[in-house]
């Protein structure tokens, strides 16, 4: 059974989570081979490296979010965050009074993070215990060679935390991560939902075997259903038309801010390709794996997995094959 699918009417896709959870993990494309020592822990999904372009009509697909228990009020706009900038970000350039705020180029050098695009209007999320912030997790990654990294993840199911492929698998550092500590809603020293250590990961061969940025996504399967306390994101596979100019949200744990603090930004898509979504939202190292989502009729659907900086910054797009894998992983 496939997930509920809707053609060009995502706002009408108000299906219950239960209809999604009936998906069977084994329904995903064939499993790939992997190293013997990790055979019971990690899996690459082989279909994602070799899929061909489908000739069938594009169909949008949506899996709904779960707010967790207890329910708390949602935050639409944040104090200190100017939504008008986000609404205009990514639109064709127009001269504004912002020119008055520009620093001389030489003064800005080395001060402005390069993946913060233009004026840094990131806003701190504190506390991070409300929806959707508590769905988002600080990741503390330990690679097989002992190297430590920080990243961001987000719940899509009770045990499943989505992130970038390079957060769970780094060939430069020995392959699959040794362990990743997942801390939802972290806010400085506060760990309102505790934490869990994952040692079981998923990605696709397009990343683990080919290092192709178009396939840079994966997930952490936790040993306990921490997502039942926090809730989790829905996600959606949207058409080019639906993504073009779409207002996007992103929040994660950047490395240039105090450790364990979550920061939000928003803006419009600037370019869409077959496998990537580009935008001028401000991000920074440490936000790899963070969710890129739309807020529509009170529902939050991730449409991409943030992974790359460079202005425009970019996310791995949730296309149908990614969506199908996420559905399977959500239920592990």
């Amino acid at each position: 059974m496939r997930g509920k699918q809707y053609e060009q009417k995502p706002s009408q896709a108000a299906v219950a989570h239960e209809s999604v959870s009936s998906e069977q993990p084994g329904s995903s494309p064939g499993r790939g081979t992997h190293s013997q020592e990790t055979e019971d822990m990690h899996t690459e999904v082989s279909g994602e490296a070799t899929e061909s372009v489908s000739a069938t009509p594009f169909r949008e697909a949506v899996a709904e979010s779960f707010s967790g228990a207890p329910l708390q009020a949602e935050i639409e706009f944040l104090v200190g965050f100017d939504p008008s900038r986000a609404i205009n970000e990514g639109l064709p350039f127009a001269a504004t009074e912002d020119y008055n705020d520009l620093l001389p180029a030489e003064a800005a050098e080395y001060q402005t993070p390069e993946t913060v695009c233009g004026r840094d209007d990131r806003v701190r999320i504190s506390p991070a215990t409300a929806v959707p912030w508590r769905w988002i997790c600080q990741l503390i990654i330990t690679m097989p060679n002992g190297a430590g990294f920080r990243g961001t993840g987000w719940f899509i199911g009770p045990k499943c935390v989505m992130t970038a492929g390079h957060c769970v698998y780094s060939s430069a550092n020995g392959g699959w991560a040794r362990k990743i500590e997942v801390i939802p809603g972290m806010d400085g020293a506060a760990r309102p939902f505790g934490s869990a250590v994952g040692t079981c990961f998923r990605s696709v061969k397009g990343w683990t075997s080919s290092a192709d940025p178009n396939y840079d996504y994966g997930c952490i399967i936790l040993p306990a259903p921490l997502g039942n306390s926090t809730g989790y994101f829905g996600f959606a596979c949207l058409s080019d038309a639906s993504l073009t100019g779409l207002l996007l949200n992103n929040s994660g744990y950047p490395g240039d801010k105090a450790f364990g603090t979550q920061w939000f930004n928003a803006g419009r898509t600037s370019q869409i390709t077959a496998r990537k979504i580009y935008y001028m939202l401000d991000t920074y190292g440490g936000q790899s794996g963070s969710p890129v989502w739309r807020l529509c009729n009170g529902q939050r659907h991730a449409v991409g997995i943030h992974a790359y900086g460079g202005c425009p910054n970019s996310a791995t797009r949730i296309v149908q094959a990614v969506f199908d894998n996420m559905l399977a992983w959500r239920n592990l």
Partner: protein
Amino acid sequence: MITLPVVIRDVMETWPLQLRVSLGSKFYLVSLWEDTEIRRGGRVVTASILVPGQRIIVYGRVSSMGVGGTDSVIADVITVPDG
């Protein structure tokens, strides 16, 4: 030890960063570590100056044979030429 004059193709936003770089037609995955030093114009700068399209020189260690014909390097020092 290895010295690679390369062009940054992609900046992966873990912290520390990971890079996908190219030398001619060959691609490398470069991992920065906490103690990787970035130098520009004789000064030590933060890794946030690294952007796609930039020419850099990576001094590091070959980590392992990478994937898909992509070698992997752990960077000890990265220099960003002026200009």
